[in-house]
């Protein structure tokens, strides 16, 4: 069994094609997002009692990294509120399919930025300030507001969802991790697409809008850039689009030669290791360095962080690829093999996140009742004390995640190494080595 077409079920298909359920979700999530911004800006500065910190960095993050990404790929993008105001402005409508084209600039995104490097930089920028960002409600509020405003502003200048595709720091990593997910959106029959003249899935039609993600569904072979907005499901006149269930890691079978994606893998792997050490470790000096932005200690920490991600990790990986049996270039070997790090990277983040989510999940109940720290008690849970949950299963769960990630990466490495003509062994030892470090840091 390779694929199960979920949209074969007429009820599910019409549910996904209808704009109403999607709109209902959009309204709620957008309202929640705006509430989080306001709570961050005017609510209590104490992170653990502010809706903004707790529901963004604990609740939303937990759902994202533990459920949405591993099982639904870019499922969060399907409901994310950030592009919505801009998109509604672009379209001149919230619900209606295309009518008159509104007068926005609709420029093409510049060629030089048509990659995920800006997303890599955006993620790193937030990552270097993460200690402050994760603990300061007003900063979280400001960052969320900036993302919303930037997406809206970009939509008035550029076509489609420029922010989502090329700038969003979250989209950068859930794109590459979506390759692992067992959910996909693909065409059913490529001959139908070959014969289709207008390609309304990409250009739009009276039935719906052209792909906001700037993807041509007919040529899509990987989950990386499809945001599951389901527009193409509505526009395809031949009902040639399907949402399928498939085995894990399916997209990793295909080689890629993109350096930006390769480095994204190292950025995510490296930052998970650094956070496990700095945030969850017992070393106070590292935490001080990471928190006191602008001091010499912080600059040292930032330099070390960047060196680890851009020099040490890729450098060691490079050394693993030196011996080769055919003439594939180093760049090709490097980009092809680095996709093997994707399962490991995701599982590193799962294992890391499990720790602080289980430890601090009790804050969600309290902040639900008193989101701004004004003394409310909406659901009677404001007084619930901090209490870590699941402490006894944490270590086994982290081990399971890391070992599963290691197996996924090792299997991918085997296939990629065979195709690239390099020995698998060094790459697998590289993965094992990093896994051992992560286990030692977490357990």
């Amino acid at each position, binding site marked *: 069994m390779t694929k199960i077409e979920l949209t074969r079920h007429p009820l599910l298909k019409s549910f996904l094609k209808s704009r109403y359920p999607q709109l209902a979700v959009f309204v709620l999530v957008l309202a929640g997002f705006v509430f989080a911004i306001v709570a961050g800006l005017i609510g209590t500065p104490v992170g653990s009692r502010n809706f903004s910190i707790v529901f963004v960095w604990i609740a939303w993050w937990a759902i994202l990294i533990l459920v949405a990404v591993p099982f639904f790929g870019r499922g969060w993008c399907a409901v994310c509120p950030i592009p919505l105001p801009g998109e509604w402005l672009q379209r001149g409508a919230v619900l209606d399919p295309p009518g008159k084209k509104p007068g926005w600039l609709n420029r093409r995104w510049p060629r030089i930025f048509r990659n995920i490097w800006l997303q890599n930089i955006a993620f790193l920028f937030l990552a270097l300030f993460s*200690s402050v960002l994760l603990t300061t409600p007003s900063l979280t509020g400001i960052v969320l507001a900036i993302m919303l405003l930037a997406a809206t502003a970009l939509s008035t200048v550029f076509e489609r969802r420029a922010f989502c595709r090329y700038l969003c720091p979250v989209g950068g990593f859930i794109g590459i991790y979506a390759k692992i997910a067992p959910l996909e959106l693909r065409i059913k029959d490529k001959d139908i697409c070959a014969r289709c003249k207008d390609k309304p899935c990409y250009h739009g039609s009276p039935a719906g809008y052209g792909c906001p993600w700037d993807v041509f569904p007919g040529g899509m072979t990987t989950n990386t850039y499809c945001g599951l907005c389901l527009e193409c499901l509505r526009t395809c006149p031949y009902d040639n689009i399907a949402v399928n269930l498939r085995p894990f890691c399916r997209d990793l079978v295909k080689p890629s030669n993109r350096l930006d994606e390769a480095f994204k893998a190292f950025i995510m792997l490296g930052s998970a290791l650094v956070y496990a050490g700095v945030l969850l470790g017992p*070393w106070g000096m590292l*935490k001080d360095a990471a928190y006191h932005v602008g001091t010499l200690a912080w600059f040292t920490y930032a330099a070390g962080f960047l060196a680890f991600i851009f020099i040490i990790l890729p450098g060691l990986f490079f050394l693993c690829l030196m011996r080769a049996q055919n003439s594939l270039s180093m760049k090709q070997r490097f980009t092809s093999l680095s996709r093997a790090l994707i399962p490991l990277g995701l599982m590193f983040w799962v294992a890391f996140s499990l720790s602080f989510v289980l*430890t601090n999940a009790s804050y969600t109940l309290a902040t639900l009742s008193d989101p701004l720290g004004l003394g409310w008690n909406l659901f009677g849970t404001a007084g619930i004390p901090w209490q*870590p949950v699941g402490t006894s299963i944490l270590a*086994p769960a982290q*081990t399971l995640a890391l070992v599963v990630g*290691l197996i996924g990466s*090792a299997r991918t490495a085997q296939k990629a190494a065979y195709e690239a003509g390099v020995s698998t062994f060094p790459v697998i030892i590289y993965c094992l080595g990093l896994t051992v470090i992560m286990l030692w840091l977490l*357990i």
Partner: protein
Amino acid sequence: MIPRLPFSLLLMVGLAAIFVPLPVPSTVPQERTFRIEARQFAFSPSELKVNVGDTITLKLVSMDVVHGLYVDGYGISVQADPGQTQTLTFTARKPGSFRLRCSATCGAMHPFMIGKLTVGENHWLLRSLVLAGLAVLGVLGQPILKA
């Protein structure tokens, strides 16, 4: 070069690695006392090591603001103002590694104010390392995935 190990063998060794009880060296239970200074945002000392069966007394000395001390796995905690040392006493019955956490909001980085108590050997870490090695051995012996 690595023989293809049958899945059943891997599974058996894996289950053994998870469930086989590891020996705990029988040491004479001692009374151990630690004076732990707590400041924003670290404990000092931040890593403690004891034997299984020891009775541990942790004296929490807050050095700047009100801090707490919570022991993962035992679920006990205490809170101390600067100038008023508070004590937590318990018997370390389970081997393993347990995080110490601050249990009184003491500023921004409070959720990351963490220490580590190791009782005996960190059994779970050993198990997980074996499992990781086993995973690699298992994969190396498998034929390559054909698309």
